[in-house]
């Protein structure tokens, strides 16, 4: 047996290589640039440059792409329009996330701890803070995560799927643990995320093993061929398929694999929550699309039960529990669980329309998510002596925000309306195309539940709007809230707000781009 070197088409991998290369270079910067402030500037510049270069390259790829796409690495990686669309989307989230990572308070305080390796509240931590230490590794870590997610959208092999999953998950575990304030909460969230993530990775691997056992291959095309040629269904195949999908549903945050979401969302530094909330969901959805449409399509009928159960459970639980949340970040975490349900609705019956509807849905959801968390990062508690503390995430603290900062409150209201799917926002169009895809495959009862859940969910979104605009600042609380001003965060808020409105009013151009992306390059069935 001789080893055959696989043919690798390097050019389509360029965006990925740029991002991961820049991440590696970032590690070197970390070692060689000593002064924290200069290091920060260098890392930020490097990260933004790499992401924008990758973005440009990906756009060029899109323009030059011949036919459906290119198989890059045998059966393992495929760059087609679907993958490019998702990669561009993730790069956009990456750019916005990096901007949020770089944002600081007026007092120059970052969202991240000065030194991740010391115990919270220890003298070392105090010393590090006084000396102005900075954890600038967050930028390369984010780049690794972006790179892993980009790869995640293009893999067509279960082994490689797992590799990509870990490449983007591990940096995220670390990032979640790096909050500057409430570090115990941050550590707790990160640990839970890591443990449960490891658990879900194990489930995914287990499922991959089952599928390999049943079909003798880990390539999607091979699995698909194996499924169609198999006589009679092996419980092993079904169990394997379910486990692989469950591993991905964990990343999407669907019930009952959602438990990590509230703790991780709340504990993580808000910029990380923003990036994670938008990009992880997108990457995981992209990977789920590929697994389902390229490998497991033959099991449509059997798997539809899984999607129905999980979608309904996610929508109901996410909505119902969000109703009773008192913390803003947790409320948005449960809202993200409900949105995971809406995403899965589009999978019901595996309609072709989902291939173009889901990128749009995730674009609208991700932009609003990043914008909402960017707003949260700007609303701070203030101590009686005037020092600015952490973020004010209790709902009651947002009362009267419309008077304190019309721009932030108005943008937040816009993002909330988009989450709720009110017309003239991106969220409405997103929900519309996603539900239309589900209806086209006859899953109208599921859509009915989704619409009811959306209506119920509107309650807690609108409640916050009412709180911001129609409620007065409580007596004696006039000085308890400080509106921070970070140019980076403001930029993100304004960009996402404009995007949410534009996608809501003139969704045509973007929809037609995703329409083109709605074709998968199916690997050569072995």
């Amino acid at each position, binding site marked *: 047996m001789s080893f055959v070197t696989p043919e690798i088409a390097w050019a389509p991998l360029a965006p990925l290589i740029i991002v991961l290369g820049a991440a590696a270079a970032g590690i070197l910067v970390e070692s060689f640039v000593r002064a924290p402030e200069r290091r920060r500037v260098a890392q930020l510049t490097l990260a933004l440059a790499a992401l924008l270069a990758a973005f440009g390259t990906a756009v060029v790829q899109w323009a030059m792409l011949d036919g459906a796409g290119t198989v890059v690495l045998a059966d393992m990686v495929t760059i087609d329009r679907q993958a490019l669309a998702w990669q561009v989307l993730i790069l956009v989230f990456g750019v916005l996330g990096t901007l949020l990572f770089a944002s600081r308070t007026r007092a120059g305080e970052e969202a991240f701890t000065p030194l991740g390796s010391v115990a919270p509240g220890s003298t070392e931590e105090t010393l590090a803070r006084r000396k102005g230490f900075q954890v600038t590794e967050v930028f390369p870590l984010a780049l690794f995560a972006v790179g892993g997610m980009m790869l995640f959208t293009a893999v067509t092999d279960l082994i490689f799927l797992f590799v990509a999953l870990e490449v983007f998950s591990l940096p995220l575990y670390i990032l979640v643990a790096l909050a500057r304030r409430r570090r115990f909460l941050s550590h707790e969230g990160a640990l839970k995320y890591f443990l449960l993530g490891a658990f879900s990775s194990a489930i995914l691997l287990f499922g991959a093993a089952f599928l390999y056992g049943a079909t003798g291959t880990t390539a999607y095309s091979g699995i698909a061929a194996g499924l169609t040629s198999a006589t009679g269904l092996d419980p092993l195949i079904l169990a394997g*398929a379910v*486990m692989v999908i469950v591993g991905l549903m964990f990343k999407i945050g669907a019930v009952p694999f959602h438990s990590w979401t509230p703790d991780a969302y709340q504990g993580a530094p808000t910029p990380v929550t923003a990036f994670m909330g938008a990009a992880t969901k997108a990457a995981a959805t992209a990977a789920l699309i590929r697994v389902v449409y390229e490998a497991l399509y033959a099991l449509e009928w059997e798997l539809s039960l899984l999607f129905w159960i999980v979608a309904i459970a996610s929508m109901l639980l996410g909505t119902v529990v969000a109703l009773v949340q008192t913390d803003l970040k947790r409320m948005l975490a449960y809202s993200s669980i409900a949105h995971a349900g809406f995403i899965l609705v589009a999978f019901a019956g595996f309609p072709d329309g989902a291939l173009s509807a889901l990128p749009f849905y995730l674009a609208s959801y991700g932009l609003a998510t990043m914008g909402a968390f960017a707003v949260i990062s700007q609303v701070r508690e203030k101590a009686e002596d005037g020092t600015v503390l952490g973020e004010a995430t209790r709902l009651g603290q947002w009362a009267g925000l419309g008077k304190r900062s019309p721009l932030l409150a108005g943008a937040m209201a816009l993002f909330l309306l988009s989450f709720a799917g009110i017309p003239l926002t991106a969220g409405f169009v997103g929900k519309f195309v996603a539900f239309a895809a589900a209806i086209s495959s006859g899953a109208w009862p599921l859509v009915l539940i989704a619409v009811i859940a959306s209506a119920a969910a509107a309650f807690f979104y609108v409640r916050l709007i009412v709180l911001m605009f129609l409620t007065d600042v409580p007596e004696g609380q006039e000085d308890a809230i400080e509106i921070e001003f970070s140019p980076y965060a403001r930029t993100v808020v304004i960009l996402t707000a404009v995007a949410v409105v534009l996608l809501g009013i003139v969704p045509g151009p973007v929809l037609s781009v995703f329409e083109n992306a709605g074709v998968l390059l199916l690997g050569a069935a072995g």
Partner: protein
Amino acid sequence: MLDLTWLLIAVPLASSAFLLLGGKRLDPWGHWVGVAASGTAFLVGLVALIQMLGLDSHDRAHAVHLFSWIPGGELNLDAGLLVDPLSMTFVMLVTFVGTLIHLYSVAYMEHDPSRRRFFAYLNLFVAAMLLLVLADSYLLLFVGWEGVGLASYLLIGFWNHKPEYATAANKAFVVNRIGDMGLIIAMGLMFTYFGALDFDSVFAAAEGASTAQLTAIGLALLVAACGKSAQFPLQSWLGDAMAGPTPVSALIHAATMVTAGVYLIVRSAPIYEGAPAAQTTVAAIGAFTLILGALIGMAKDDIKKALAASTMSQIGYMVLAAGLGPIGYAFAIFHLVTHGFFKAGMFLGAGSVMHGMNDQVDMRRFGALRTAMVTTWVTFGLGWLAILGVPPFSGFWSKDKIIEAAFVGEGAQPWILGGAALIGAGLTAFYMSRLFFMTFHGKARWTDDQHPHESPALMTVPMIILAVGSAFLGLFLAMGDRFTMWLEPVTGHAEHHEPVLPVAVIMIATLALVALGVWAAWRKYGVADVPELAPAASLATIAARNDMFQDSVNRGVFERPGTHLTRTLVYADAALVDSAVDKTAGGWARTGESVRKTQNGQVRSYALTMLVGLVIVILVVVQGGL
């Protein structure tokens, strides 16, 4: 020019907007813009009319496409105008009488600080009315229909600093909404049955439609017509509408807007052709209202309200004629035109009297005005002769034909309808003579500070022109059946039917009744002294003075039960719907609280949840799949 008929609507509309938006600097001369806009519309209409007269009678219907209005999935509707003899008749009536009334208003409203606004509303009315009659679809007609309703509301309440005037405006608006609902329902039915709202498609589809469908549409349209034309049972607003300035009463509430219902019925002739029951209802409503209005008119002492009752009664004649089918359509419109002239003329005369008598409207304080206001007396007198139907004045030619047509038919119907029309003519003669004699003849019963004088030329000239029309227009149009021939392309050719009584008998009976009515009125109000305060009277008179208790009936039959119904509904809403919603919401919140407890912060229980969930879905899928 026929293609430019959109100017008819656009010019007054633009002028209206100009006057409303122009601000106070337009006050000194803005009203002349209004007059010019109405005059321009008249000239455009006149040129179009001349051009239309030059065409063969079959080519006179001219469609003007304006723009694609509602390009919907199942409903595609273009905005367009239909210029045919029927709409052209209205165009001429509205613009000609309208322009005269604009002129008259310049003097009548001279001392009003809001004269510019008044003219803006008048222009708005002209534009909306022309849109109503020129529209080529029910939906576009509805736009005009609502437009005239709005203008009417604004003008009735023009002096809304007086609460009762504002109330009158509201009343007119609310009652008209009921009629509007009829039109909306009719359009809904048309859309359901025929899938179209433009006249061409609807009328084409009506030929193949069932009688039940057409009857439903016809009755809904009748409700609309009753609201706009103050026919029973939606007549109650018209008397109160006299709160508006008198030129408004002349133009909107006598000559034009209130006849829109007649237009609607005649325009919808193809629908009524297939719905005899609806048609009979139309005729019955008309006959009933013409008697009702006449009875009310006999007891009113307020000159404007007496004229309003007369308007109601005369429109009753038109509706009756419209309900008779093709033999009546042309006469309905004919009477509408002549009525437009003589009733507008008499309203302007009443305005002139009020102008000279410090805005007094109580006829018991008039008397012997013929010497003080000669022009008003003569012009009003010509209108009086016309409405009486004395030959050869205008009303004779139109009303007599309606009475004749009402006697055509089989069974009891001609006797009832014809009898009502005949008696109505006698009643009309009585109450109109009463009005005329109480105002211009007998002894002067003026209050001390009243010094009646003739109105300025700006007011008398329009009155004179309208009086000439009242005198001779009927004869001119009736000669050689000119008017019926002109309308024939729209209303269809009417087969000649013999009435149940010889024509000569009907005519003599009518004239005899008219003479009787005039004689009775002369005895009581011309020769005898008229008390300055209304004397105690019989129950019937009291009922007539109170508009046959229409307001009490409305209050008892509709308002009270309506109030109770809404109260009950509000209570039910709070007790059932709200509490159900609240309880559901509370239930969700409680569910949320209990589910929230599963998120207990223990990572091992999270993992357990995942595991259990995984096992369950695997079992379900494997069970379901095998």
